[in-house]
């Protein structure tokens, strides 16, 4: 009941400054910081040639990314200092705001189209991609709702609001169209239900419609290509497979140790979206399999510590929020690497923290702010009560 044991570890005698340092989850913070800075370097390497040609400024993308990181870090520190528990009661608002933002994409004078898809809203040069925000909006909603309903999780009807919210969000994103984020969101809310305590057989019910599609696809495999080509024109804007081929050339050229930083040849316009969706290919080309392994390891460290935060969270809401945030990162890393290695059909999905993209980096860093706050709160709670909160 008393904190005497903790005192002996020296928390109590630590200064405020020291205290803040102690409470910071260093593996998470530094791996994210490393990935972001590494991202800027890779973005510069991948885009300097194309940026010079297109904008007359080889730092064009790198500079934008740096601005994104600075904004993101500011946001991270602000959010880090807000108790996450305050978010719990706004979980419905998170859903509503997310859906509104997604719907705004379809308002003509606000929407910004590119590559045949409408994914951005903005005024003038300032644009944001609502789906990047919506992913975390959904996580917050699920965490809030499921932590409230944890005692009724064995009933299927408890799942229905989440299914409706997730389904609605999927439909809106699909309409943009953005197949890959749709899949990402779908995976996220299923994961949230799983973590929230839904019964496996209930989750299994969700799989039934998916399973129904499989025999159709097996009968006529071209349908899959059609489906993807139809739903996500961005990924098929160029000759089908061209990006993938170029990505494999990049990775293949890299070999074990890579051709050396800044030495990529594929970045000379051969590999489309080299600075964003296909940045991992450039990493593979310049730094080789070893470099890829290193980056994947750092992501895994991040995911591992993210789950630890979830495990150690002092509230169910915090736990669900933490594992939701971590899962969004994990699923995007997995999808992105699967795409660039040709393991799944090409879809446009950025690699968290590394790919160029302002909204993405700001939102991810903000989410890390939440994650770090959950960890800070649970450490404080440990200090204050030195027992595992009971439910």
């Amino acid at each position: 009941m008393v904190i005497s044991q903790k005192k002996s570890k020296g928390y109590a005698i630590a200064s405020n400054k020291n205290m803040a340092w102690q409470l910071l989850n260093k593996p998470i913070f530094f791996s994210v910081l490393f990935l972001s800075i590494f991202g800027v370097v890779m973005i510069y390497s991948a885009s300097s040639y194309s940026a010079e040609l297109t904008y007359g400024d080889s730092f064009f993308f790198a500079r934008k990314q740096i601005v994104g990181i600075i904004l993101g870090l500011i946001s991270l520190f602000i959010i880090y200092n807000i108790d996450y528990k305050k978010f719990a009661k706004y979980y419905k608002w998170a859903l509503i705001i997310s859906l509104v933002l997604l719907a705004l994409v379809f308002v003509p004078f606000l929407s910004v189209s590119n590559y045949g898809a409408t994914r951005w809203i903005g005024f003038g040069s300032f644009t944001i991609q609502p789906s990047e925000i919506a992913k975390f909006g959904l996580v917050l909603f699920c965490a809030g709702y499921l932590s409230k309903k944890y005692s009724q999780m064995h009933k299927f009807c408890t799942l229905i609001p989440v299914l409706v919210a997730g389904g609605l969000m999927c439909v809106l994103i699909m309409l943009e169209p953005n197949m890959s984020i749709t899949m990402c969101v779908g995976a996220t809310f299923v994961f949230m239900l799983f973590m929230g305590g839904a019964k496996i057989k209930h989750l299994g019910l969700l799989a039934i419609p998916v399973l129904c599609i499989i025999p159709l696809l097996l009968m006529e495999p071209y349908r899959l290509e059609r489906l993807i080509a139809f739903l996500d024109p961005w990924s098929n804007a160029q000759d089908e497979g061209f990006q993938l081929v170029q990505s494999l050339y990049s990775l293949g050229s890299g070999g074990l140790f890579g051709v050396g930083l800044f030495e990529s040849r594929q970045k000379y316009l051969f590999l489309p979206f080299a600075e964003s969706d296909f940045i991992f290919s450039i990493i593979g080309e310049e730094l080789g399999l070893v470099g890829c392994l290193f980056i994947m390891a750092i992501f895994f460290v991040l995911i591992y510590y993210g789950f630890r935060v979830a495990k150690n969270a002092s509230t169910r809401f915090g736990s669900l929020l933490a594992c939701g945030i971590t899962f969004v990162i994990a699923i995007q890393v997995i999808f992105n690497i699967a795409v660039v290695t040709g393991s799944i059909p090409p879809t446009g999905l950025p690699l968290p923290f590394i790919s160029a993209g302002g909204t993405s980096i700001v939102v991810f860093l903000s989410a890390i702010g939440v994650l770090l706050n959950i960890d800070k709160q649970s450490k404080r709670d440990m200090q204050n009560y030195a027992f595992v909160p009971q439910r």
Partner: protein
Amino acid sequence: MKTTFSLLSIHKRLLTALVVIAFIFMALFARLFFVQIIYGKTYSARAVDQWTRDLPLEAKRGSIFDRNGNALAVCQTTYNVYVRPNAVKDATSVARVLSDVLGVSFEKAYTLCSTKGVSEALVKMQATEAQMQAIVDANALGVYFSQNIQRYYPYGDLLTQVLGYLSIDNQGQSGLEAFYDYYLKGINGKALTEGDLIGRELDDNLVQYLPSIDGNSLYTSLDLSLQVALENVLEVIMQKQEAKGAYGILMNPNTGEILAMSNKPSFDLNNVPRDDLTTMLDQSKNKTVVDVYEPGSTFKILTMAAALEENITTENEVFYDPGYRIVDGDRIKCWRTIGHGSQTLTEGFCNSCNSVFMDLALRLGTDKFYEYLEKFGVNSTTEIDFLGESSGILMPISQVKNVDLARIGFGHAVAVTMVGLLTAISSIINGGTSITPSFVNSIVASNGQTISLKNNASKRVVSESTSARIRAMMSQAVNKQEIRSFVPGYDIGGKTGTAQKYENGVIASGKYVSSFIGIYPAEKPEYILLIAVDEPSAGAYYGSLVAAPYGKMFFEQMFSILNIPPQDLEADLEKMEKNIVVPNLVGKGLATAVSELIECGLQYEIQGEGEIVQNQLLPAGSLTYKDDIVLLIT
């Protein structure tokens, strides 16, 4: 607790999720391992392929020279001049330089230099190296050049069909350019450059060169000055005889070396009429090698040689020609319908009497005659170094009836190429050995290495004595009769011929190929000449009138070019004076004209039904010999 979901359960599910994620990460890593290590080499090889561009370094095509080292076809390096307006700093001064050096107007140059939004504009094509250097020296910023190697024919419309032309991408399409394309073209090199997706060169690009190997040069047996003379003579024929075409070949009958060869009409090789395909294809065809024709009387040399070699006749045997022969019931006319009367074999040759040669052919018989014709190469190609040579055509031996045999005897019912006929006659008059005609004496590589092309393996076709006897007859034909090809002081031998043309398998009325074959010196020939006139339409068509005078014209020019002095000029001139000047008969009554001719010791032919002479051939004032025939057109 059974119905509520505990934190411990969360922990379990977290662990499950982490394990699943770890598993997926490992799977992705395995996939990366495959892509980067197992297939890495394959992928990177393909990638290298798309990173580099190899620009061909064009090999310089070999030149073609005549026997004295005059260039007939060379490669010229020209430059296309471009401006990139964005790179032009001072449009006025650059435009000034361009207009001064290239002769384009200043206004045009200024517009090109100052038009924004255009990445590149062509100022002038085919600028010379000196012009390019002048622009470079003037330091005109924003001006660029592209080099191109271009075929250039210094004499343009000369040897058009012999040299041949190139396609746009410098491949030989006809003539020697095509036949020797493999030797001439050289081997292109490569410049490997690294570029981006659309081929823009990279800044730190290292260009790797694989140098080109220039083509070999051809040293031909052609003689530029004789060629010029021949072409001029043919041009005169085209004009004077209003002919459809005129052909000439000058060859060394002992070696087969072609000294000059020309086809008219022709075009300038530097300005190939590529947009007029029919003209281009027709006029680029070397018809002396590619096309066959019915030779007519020039073929009689072959019949005569076979007859003499077989000893079935002698020079002094007397033949009677009533103007026709009846062969197996068919009446075959001599060209002179009133007949040549009694004449010796030699006179028959000089008169070109068809009846005599019908007799000779019939005496030889099909088998023997064919044996000789095959020896002379009539039914085969000459193997000349030229693309698309045709073989002569003989009727299948089994189908030859006596009427056919008789006709073949005077050069009908048989087809040969001009070069084939000349080769056959050469082998008869050169002492009796076969030859292979050729254009190229040696091929010289860019490094100086030389391949000499030698004509090999000649075989005997007739004996030395037969050869000498034929030469004597040809000499007599010119000296005694063919005054129109006689050059005083020079011992020329010759034979004329006139053949009907066939169109769609039937004789085309009024269409003839008139030809002349001349040898010099007749005693021991070093030159053999063929002049052929296709469809002369200025009135006359007999080879003696249409082709022989131009044979003479050419020989005269040849003697002056080669500085060959006349021999026994006095005697020849004396002989000339004994010759007859043809009187003017035009406008006179037919009876008057005929009696005037007989008074002069000339014979006549009448064409037409009128009573008044409208035209005469030979023309008034021309020199001729006793008993020559004047055609009166009424």
